[in-house]
């Protein structure tokens, strides 16, 4: 049986054990482990033919689909590094990421046919596009049908565990997104730890709700093949229609669900749960942001046989803690993030880097096999995000999460907020400073404050207030469109207004707390 040292080895190994078992399913179509091997060979063959060298980046510009799984494994099998590009992000942001990490080859499908010509307009970084066929484009293209006529064997590449496997971009506070670099080793470590913790095997059917550019997707794309489970990729259409989404859980007989709380709240509110059979669910995992206890209680009561687990971990370490809820929450106390999972160590430190007493608040630092290698092309930021200590002659590296936590009397970790101005919107990380820096690029903006308030249904919403430059006129629509062209949809403020003055602290800084309180009252 093939050994598993790299992520594509999980497919080879499962194909050996369960060749005809379905590895991925999406929208009624499926691909078996044996077929996965054939197609990932074909993609690797083609990438090699395009001149892709080991360690080079390939963009994955796809909505949730079977193509996504094929692209990810084809790229890694060829020795390349896959870079998810949010299919809903503005074109200028996609171009920025392509340039930032030197992508030459893009994998897409016909659903993005409208976007591709716009992407190529005045932009000549790409040399090949895989997944759509169009003679009129300025670069050579190759359709999925053509890929599947290529040889089904590819010499096993010399990929090692410590080689890069993927780069996931996230909001950066200086205005440029930062690329989190993961190796085959860190990706596979996550897959092994999560397989063990949730006791996943070949009987499991894992619902993959998250898009590829969100780290929650690694459960479906990595853990499922390692465990020989089937991953059901939930296509974009289902994520927008809760009644169809709940139908999918029943029809696909999912045994594990993993998503941000919002998706589960939508199922609860509009998924006609009383008409659906959820008896196949063994696990319901949620992460990305806190789950409002009122909704969680209701949901747990409706799916009594499933174990609910609060998952915590920044994308830099993937997952690092878990909390299995012993019973539905009885009050409004936030759900703990729980215990640090195996093969991982945590420290809670004060602002001087000293460990705090048990029960005191501090920043959580994590040392784990799942830790990223660093931020792409940013050794300085990487260095700042690591805490290194050497007490035994061997250097230990911890990732500084920036999250404030406390260990409660039962030994469970509680999440208490951020050290900086990062927030979560629908589970996505958003740096408020990044939005401000884009607003400052607008010629009519004198000063700006961006902050979060509680919107409808307890959801966070982003607001921006601008002091205009004297002599400049602009409309609020203009400012909104300025941001829409630069930021992913979830990071664009829901409300933009103007003012002539901000409340300030004694040192002259904008008083964000007072500002948010004022807005909340309007």
């Amino acid at each position, binding site marked *: 049986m093939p050994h598993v040292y790299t992520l594509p080895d999980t497919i080879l190994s499962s194909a050996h054990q369960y060749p005809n078992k379905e590895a991925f399913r999406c929208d009624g179509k499926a691909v078996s482990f044996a077929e996965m091997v054939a197609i990932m060979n074909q993609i690797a063959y083609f990438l090699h033919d395009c001149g892709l060298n080991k360690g080079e980046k390939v963009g994955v510009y796809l909505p949730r689909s079977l193509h996504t799984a094929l692209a990810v494994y084809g790229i890694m099998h060829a020795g390349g590094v896959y870079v998810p590009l949010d299919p809903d992000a503005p074109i200028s942001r996609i171009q920025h990421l392509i340039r930032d990490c030197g992508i030459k080859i893009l994998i897409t499908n016909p659903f993005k046919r409208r976007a591709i010509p716009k992407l190529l307009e005045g932009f000549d970084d790409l040399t090949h596009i895989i997944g759509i066929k169009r003679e009129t484009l300025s670069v050579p293209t190759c359709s999925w049908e053509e890929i599947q006529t290529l040889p089904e064997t590819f010499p096993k590449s010399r990929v090692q565990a410590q080689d890069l496997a993927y780069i996931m971009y996230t909001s950066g506070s200086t205005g440029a997104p930062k690329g989190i670099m993961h190796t085959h080793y860190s990706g596979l470590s996550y897959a092994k730890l999560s397989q063990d913790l949730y006791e996943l095997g070949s009987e499991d059917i894992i619902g993959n709700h998250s898009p590829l550019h969100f780290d929650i997707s690694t459960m479906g794309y990595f853990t499922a093949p390692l465990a020989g489970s089937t991953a059901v990729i939930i296509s974009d*259409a289902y994520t927008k*229609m809760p009644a*169809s989404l709940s139908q999918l859980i029943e029809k696909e007989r999912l045994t594990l669900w993993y998503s941000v709380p919002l998706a589960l709240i939508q199922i609860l509110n509009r998924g006609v749960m009383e008409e659906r059979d959820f008896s196949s669910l063994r696990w319901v995992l949620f992460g990305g942001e806190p789950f409002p206890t009122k909704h969680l209680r209701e949901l747990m009561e409706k799916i009594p046989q499933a174990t609910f687990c609060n998952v915590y971990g920044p994308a830099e370490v993937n997952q690092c803690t878990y909390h299995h809820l012993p019973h539905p929450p009885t009050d409004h106390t936030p759900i703990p993030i729980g215990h640090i999972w195996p093969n991982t160590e945590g420290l809670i430190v004060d602002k001087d880097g000293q460990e705090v007493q048990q029960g005191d608040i501090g920043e959580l630092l994590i040392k784990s096999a799942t830790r990223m290698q660093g931020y792409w092309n940013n050794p300085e930021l990487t260095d700042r995000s690591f805490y290194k200590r050497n007490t035994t002659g061997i250097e230990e590296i911890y990732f500084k999460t920036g999250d404030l936590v406390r260990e409660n009397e039962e030994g469970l970790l509680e999440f208490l907020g951020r050290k900086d101005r990062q927030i979560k919107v629908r589970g996505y990380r958003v740096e408020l400073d990044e939005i401000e820096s884009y607003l400052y690029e607008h010629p009519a903006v004198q000063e700006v404050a961006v902050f979060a308030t509680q919107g409808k249904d307890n959801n966070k919403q982003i607001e921006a207030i601008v002091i205009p430059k004297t002599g400049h006129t602009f409309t609020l629509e203009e400012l909104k469109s300025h941001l829409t062209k630069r930021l992913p949809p979830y990071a664009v403020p829901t409300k933009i207004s103007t003012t002539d003055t901000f409340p300030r602290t004694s040192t002259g800084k904008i008083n964000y707390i007072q500002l948010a309180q004022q807005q909340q009252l309007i």
Partner: protein
Amino acid sequence: MKEKLLTYVNETLLEGGEENHITSEEDLLTTGILDSVAMMSLVGYIEEEYSLTIPAGELTIENFISIDAITNFLSSKKEEIQL
């Protein structure tokens, strides 16, 4: 009805961006043309415009995949719709 819905999607939800204009048979859900927030705005618009409440169980992919599908779905509810 079809024209009215198309106008709403193109002018209001897609903010009139000409290159984004959709046709009535186009897939609204898979391509990323409308996100989940825009989809809910469209449902809200239909409910208000035709004075009806669409039960949660009928908010499905089949009924809302395209403007054509929505028009067919609404035609099947003719008796409830006050035009």
